[in-house]
């Protein structure tokens, strides 16, 4: 349906044109003396605010032990199906972790698929996967953009742990339980 756009006649100030000129000059002058906000990316990097959802990574606990138990909940919840886990047993060369029984054999996140939604971090029952500060990824091939387990741990590093759930279980198992 056609409708009429009402065009109001210009006021005197608008017709003079000068007030707008001076307003513009004022802004320019203000920025001439204000502190610089442009970042010289990539030489300069922005400060990442807490809670930022960067590249998903696997983290170790403060003792440097693997936290993921390959429950595959992140694989299940991942909307673009970017995560692929091959579950397995804890390797025999880690005797202090044998009571955890399960660990990922392989863990891959396809960063060409990842949408940085953070559902994997939210669903993780072991607090093993975190979206951290890393935001810039590039690669020459598709294969390069798939983060494997070693790369995920390299990106993730170590984060503090408040629970030590499996350590508590181990202590209980070793000392038994008096009713």
């Amino acid at each position, binding site marked *: 349906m056609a409708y009429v756009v009402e065009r109001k006649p210009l006021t005197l100030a608008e017709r003079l044109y000068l007030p707008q000129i001076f307003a513009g000059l004022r802004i320019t002058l203000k920025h001439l003396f204000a502190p610089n906000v442009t970042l010289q990316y990539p030489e300069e990097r922005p400060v990442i605010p807490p809670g930022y959802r960067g590249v998903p990574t696997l983290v170790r606990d403060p003792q440097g032990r693997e936290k993921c*138990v*390959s*429950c*595959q*909940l992140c*694989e*299940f919840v991942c909307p673009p199906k970017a995560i692929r886990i091959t*579950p*397995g*047993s804890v390797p025999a060369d880690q005797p202090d972790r044998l*009571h*955890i*029984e*399960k660990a990922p054999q392989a863990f891959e996140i396809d960063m060409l698929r990842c949408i940085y939604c953070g559902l994997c971090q939210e669903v993780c*029952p*072991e607090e093993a996967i975190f979206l951290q500060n890393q935001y810039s990824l590039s690669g020459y091939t598709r294969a390069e953009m798939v983060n494997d387990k070693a790369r995920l741990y390299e990106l993730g590093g170590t984060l503090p742990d408040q629970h030590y*759930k499996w350590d508590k*279980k181990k202590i*209980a*198992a070793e000392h*038994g*339980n008096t*009713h």
Partner: protein
Amino acid sequence: MMQPLPSDLITVNVDGQDIAVPKGTNMIEAARLASVEVPHYCYHPKLTISGNCRMCLVEMGLPVVDPATKAPLMDPATGKQKINWMPRPTIACATNASPGLHIRTNTAAVQDCRNSVTEFLLINHPLDCPICDQAGECKLQEHSTAYGRGYSRFVEQKNVKPKRTQLGPRVTLDDERCILCSRCVRFSKEIAQDDVLGFIDRGSYSTLTCYPGKQLANNYSLNTVDLCPVGALTSTDFRFKMRVWFLKQTPSIDCESSVGVNTEVWSREGVIYRITPRQNDAVNDTWMADSGRVLFKEVSAADRLSWATLNGVQVTQGKALQAAVDLLSGRGGRAESGAVKGVAVVGSGRSTVEEQFLTQKIAAKLNATVALVSRVGVGDKILVSADRNPNVRGALVTGLIHALPEQKLTALGAAIDAGQVQVVLSIGEDLIAAGLTGAQLAKVAVIYLGTHQNATSAVASVMMPTLTVFEKAGTLVNQQFRLQKFARAVPGLAGVSDDLVTLSHLLNALSGAPLGATLGALWPVIAAEVKVLAHATYDTLPSTGLLLDSTSWAGLPFVEGETLHFKSVRVTGVTS
């Protein structure tokens, strides 16, 4: 008022809804008939009642009668018979329905019972769900979601019990997860007839274990894993392989014997991870043998045949097919041209009904003699019968054979020695294992259709690969003459044609009369030609199978003895 009912039915009232149930039904099943779920752990419809989990507590009431006259006492407010509600809840599994019984499952008291039982069960249950294979199909997990409080009030230390115990070669036990329902104990005793499991110690120290010096090693041990409502008993083979919620279930049939156990094949992205039983109360209840659960490993076996060969050289499927047609129609091969061709077909009791039908057509077209190889073992009287061919009766029904197969192909061997047979078409049967010698095979041209390498595939003139039972769909006829269907669980090996396609191409090339290569196209032909299958189609076949009229074969000396839900009419001595 109560309607008059057939004598074996009684009326009970579940949450205000009147429903007719058979006599002797317990309250859980009566509620199930009324579409009301009563949560339970220890109760299993195929095992005896033990009533120890207390999860199925419901309120129960009985109609009031005058003690003196036995006349129903009516409630003037409602005009119905008064109900005397019991002051305390009862367990629904161990209480049989009686006429006029009233059950309430939705009251605050029942809800309270379930919440409390759940809280008690969770007191000592470890926080293992992330590493527990049962997660996703765990009754405790499901009922905790429905009836749990979401946090724990338990401040003391949880119990410590043995973890990762190997109960037997195929079963791993985690005692901390056990809720002491005793389903596995009852199964071992009642169904597997191998009473090796039991509880030791008392109270919260109670621990499931094997009798000293014994193992849970019987061929039905993995049923305890299926039964276990929690993750206490897990399959060592399936341990940490894949989460169940990723797996697709496909109805299938266990091909290890003629029992035809109904199974569920669990696969993800074309890879099979496990096989579990599928309930069929007329065949296998809810059980299956352990030996049938590992059969899927043949799909990815290293000796799988994945391309066609002509005299040992890899060729395309089309070339192999043409060479086979040439051999069968007498236009090539080792015999001198012009010689009279004798063709023998060795069919298989492992083929599906549809494949046997096509084989029969090919044999009839070629005027070939047909033999089948029998496989006889020792039946265990539960779910593995003496006949290890799953579909000998299918061959009888489709007319491929008219007598029971021999264990050795001596007649065929003699015919080869006498020079009457020049070409042998073998449908998946290893002729050397079936009693022919290498010298005999050297005298004839062998066309072999099979899934795996063996002595026959190595010497075959023409070899065409086929699919395993997990990669194709079809029907089998079990020992009860029950026609049962199975579906395709995973896609076939790349480059390998479906068996039906290969056979129907052979038939078409030989007879010139095209016959369908799909189940949908074949079944109208089968139904039209085979009298006992007259009303069957693959699509409309019920999931529990269709019992065929077996009177034509009643006199045959089948080798099966007794198994669950089957008793052979004539039991013959079994030699293996």
